[in-house]
């Protein structure tokens, strides 16, 4: 299998061991982020060329073990079994070698050779943990490299060992853990029973271990393959020894303990780590919650303080670009310049001006994630998330939604349970994104003048309340089930790493720009066509007619057909509704801020904003929801639910506003 000049390298490792740092160092900008075929699990791969060898590096999903209890674990092991990478690199955490070795004990049962890269040896030394790599190498029988990936230490050594190993020039004689003594007989028994029936590319040892672990996928596979009589014998053996999993796990930890005893020494004890000192404050509810709120407030202040002026700047740039394009296209037919200037530049271009705001917000979030704070935020928020049927882990994706709902929906992937993932995706669009906040601040400033800030805050609160209400409703009525397990590692705090943060921000931003360039662009052009065909006045266009057709419905909410059309246009991108209001009210030279107060009553404006904030999400978000939710029924339900709740709330807001004479 091992080619001379091309190698396939799989990176394995548990979460929080610095695997992505290793991956980023190796692949840099050559990395490509996509999906595993047919799955909503991220697949990252890239190319590294070293010593005239082209290495295709595949980043396996970070998992704690390789049993098929989660999608990620299935993907990781299926890849190794089916694709047989030339070498696997296991990134291990030097500060917690025991549990890293647990994953190794599973990898060694597969066929590809493994190199262990013991990462963060510097942090371990600080904590008084010394790892004797030579002795570790002897105990394991496979190559071991000490490494500090963040400081680029050990990477070269790793690569040269990878090449030597793939050429068969390194000693490779792995010592594989046994099943614990009391279950050895049943293990051999099972091997005997299955031996003739193991399908390629599996090995009997691996399959039997998985049977004893109760792995649902392998149990099913063997039930289908084996003749009935043999299967029932196996079944009765497994039922009789229902504690086999404990024997497998026990055997692995016996092996780990023996390895650790010989190669790890502790020379400082009883010191209090920085992580524990910080956690003493940050995870205590009394301090933790106010601190979390302040951190988030800072995130917003920074994002808008720096981002908004930049956005304004870009907007002026886009406008002058549109004027320049106007001159350039002055000879062309009106419909061409219309599509280009109003459709493409005005629609998709305006969306892109939000890039600085998003960049800053994503960068801030990525820093919080990278230093380890986000796991603490999830811990502190856990009890609140329970009231809406979720647990702490859903907090991070939801909060990303304040930037843009697209990464929020994509971010729901970190949640293991399907039910919780579905609910998180369902609720994410209730979080008001930067685009909606922009429309909100502009319209409320124009119409409500000095009360604008109060109105804006109230409407953001309405969204949060709607999120809570919908979560409670959905989790109790439609998504009932047993409480979801909440098991989450709290990594050590560490200094932010520019490269890791850079890659996270880059990938999230790329996802946004890609949507702007495809979905949003397409819909911008479509909306332009609809508002210009048949030509002449917008009132007579397709869009205008649709607007007037639903106007009677709008009357309940105090919306005229122009506002309805603007809402429809907000489906392309929420910012679009501002541009559409401008066109529809014939703003011209006077500017939207001066025209709006005369055109919208306070009650109507309030209703318009409420509907806009809760309306069907933008096209980009809808497209990722469809992709991630993996269920047509839920996708449609989510859209209809948003539509009903937004119209209902709009109506309520309008009636209340009239009642109180706002």
């Amino acid at each position, binding site marked *: 299998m091992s080619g001379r000049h091309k190698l396939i390298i799989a990176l394995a490792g548990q979460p929080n061991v610095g695997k992505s740092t290793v991956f980023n160092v190796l692949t840099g900008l050559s990395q490509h982020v996509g999906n595993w075929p047919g799955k909503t699990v991220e697949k990252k791969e890239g190319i590294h060329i070293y010593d005239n060898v082209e290495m295709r590096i595949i980043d396996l999903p970070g998992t*704690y073990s390789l049993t098929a209890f989660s999608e990620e674990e299935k993907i990781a092991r299926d890849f190794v079994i089916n694709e047989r990478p030339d070498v696997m690199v296991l990134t291990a955490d030097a500060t917690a070698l025991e549990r890293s070795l647990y994953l190794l004990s599973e990898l060694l049962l597969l066929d590809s050779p493994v190199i262990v890269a013991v990462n963060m040896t510097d942090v371990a030394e600080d904590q008084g943990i010394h790892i004797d790599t030579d002795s570790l190498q002897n105990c394991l029988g496979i190559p071991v490299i000490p490494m500090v990936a963040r400081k680029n230490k050990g990477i070269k050594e790793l690569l040269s060992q990878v090449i030597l190993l793939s050429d068969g020039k390194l000693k490779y004689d792995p010592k594989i853990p046994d099943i614990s003594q009391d279950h050895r007989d049943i293990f051999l028994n099972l091997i005997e029973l299955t031996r003739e029936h193991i399908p390629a590319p599996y090995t009997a040892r691996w399959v039997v271990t998985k049977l004893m672990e*109760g792995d649902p996928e392998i149990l099913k596979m063997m039930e289908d393959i084996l003749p009935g009589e043999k299967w029932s014998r196996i079944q009765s053996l497994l039922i009789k020894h229902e504690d086999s*999993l404990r024997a497998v796990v026990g055997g692995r*930890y016996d092996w780990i303990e023996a390895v650790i005893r010989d190669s790890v020494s502790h020379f400082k004890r009883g010191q209090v780590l920085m992580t524990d000192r910080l956690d003493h404050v940050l995870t205590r509810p009394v301090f933790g919650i106010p601190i979390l709120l302040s951190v988030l407030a800072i995130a917003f202040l920074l994002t808008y303080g720096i981002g908004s002026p930049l956005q304004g700047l870009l907007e002026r740039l886009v406008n002058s670009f549109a004027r320049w394009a106007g001159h350039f296209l002055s000879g062309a037919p009106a419909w061409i310049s219309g599509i280009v200037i109003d459709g493409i530049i005005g629609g998709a271009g305006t969306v892109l001006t939000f890039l600085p705001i998003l960049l800053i917000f994503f960068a801030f979030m990525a820093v919080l994630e990278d230093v380890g704070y986000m796991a603490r935020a*999830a811990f502190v928020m856990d*009890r609140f998330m329970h009231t809406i049927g979720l*647990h702490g882990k859903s907090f991070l994706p939801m909060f990303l939604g304040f930037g843009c709902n697209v990464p929020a929906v994509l971010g729901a992937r970190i949640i293991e349970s399907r039910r919780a993932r579905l609910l998180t995706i369902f609720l994410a669009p209730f979080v008001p994104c930067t685009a909606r906040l922009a429309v909100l601040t502009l319209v409320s400033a124009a119409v409500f003048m000095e009360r604008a800030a109060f109105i804006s805050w109230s409407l953001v609160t309405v969204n949060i309340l709607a999120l809570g209400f919908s979560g409670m409703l959905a989790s109790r009525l439609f998504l009932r089930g047993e409480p979801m397990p909440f098991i*989450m590692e709290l990594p050590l705090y560490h200094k932010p790493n520019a490269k890791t943060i850079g890659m996270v921000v880059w990938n999230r931003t790329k996802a946004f720009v890609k949507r702007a360039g495809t979905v949003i662009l397409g819909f911008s052009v479509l909306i332009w066509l609809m508002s210009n065909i048949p030509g002449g006045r917008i009132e007579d266009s397709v869009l205008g007619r649709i607007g007037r057709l639903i106007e009677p419905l709008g009357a309940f909410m105090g919306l005229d057909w122009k506002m309805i059309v603007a809402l429809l246009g907000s489906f392309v991108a929420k910012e679009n509704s501002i541009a559409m209001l401008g066109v529809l009210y014939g703003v011209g030279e006077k500017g939207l801020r001066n025209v709006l107060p005369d055109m919208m009553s306070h009650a109507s404006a309030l209703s318009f904003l409420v509907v806009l904030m809760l309306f069907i999400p933008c096209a980009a978000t809808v497209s990722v929801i469809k992709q991630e939710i993996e269920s047509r029924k839920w996708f449609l339900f989510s859209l209809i639910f948003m539509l009903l709740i937004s119209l209902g709330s709009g109506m309520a807001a309008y009636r209340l506003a009239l009642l109180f004479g706002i």
Partner: protein
Amino acid sequence: MSEEKKIKDLTRSGIEDRRMDKKSFPVTSLKEGEEGLIHSISGGLSLISRLAGMGIVPGTEIKVLRNSRGPLIVLVNNTRVALGRGQASKILIVFDLSRQKKGQLAE
């Protein structure tokens, strides 16, 4: 072989009839800062296997770092893990022998 090590061996490789020798109780009943020795996990395969991957296995020392209402934080094998109360209550422990000698057993 030390006393502590003996207990570890009993619980780790698992000798069924010794399981009930020690009085075990859920880790949720430990106060912040207290330590114990994991005795068994009384949960389904998927829970046992997930916890095993994080180093939470019988025979390992476990320290409770945070335990008020809501989720817990425990320290196992130098790894900090947040656990929902439901999951944590399935981790059964016995007091560490060293502590037992100091007469700090709850009984």
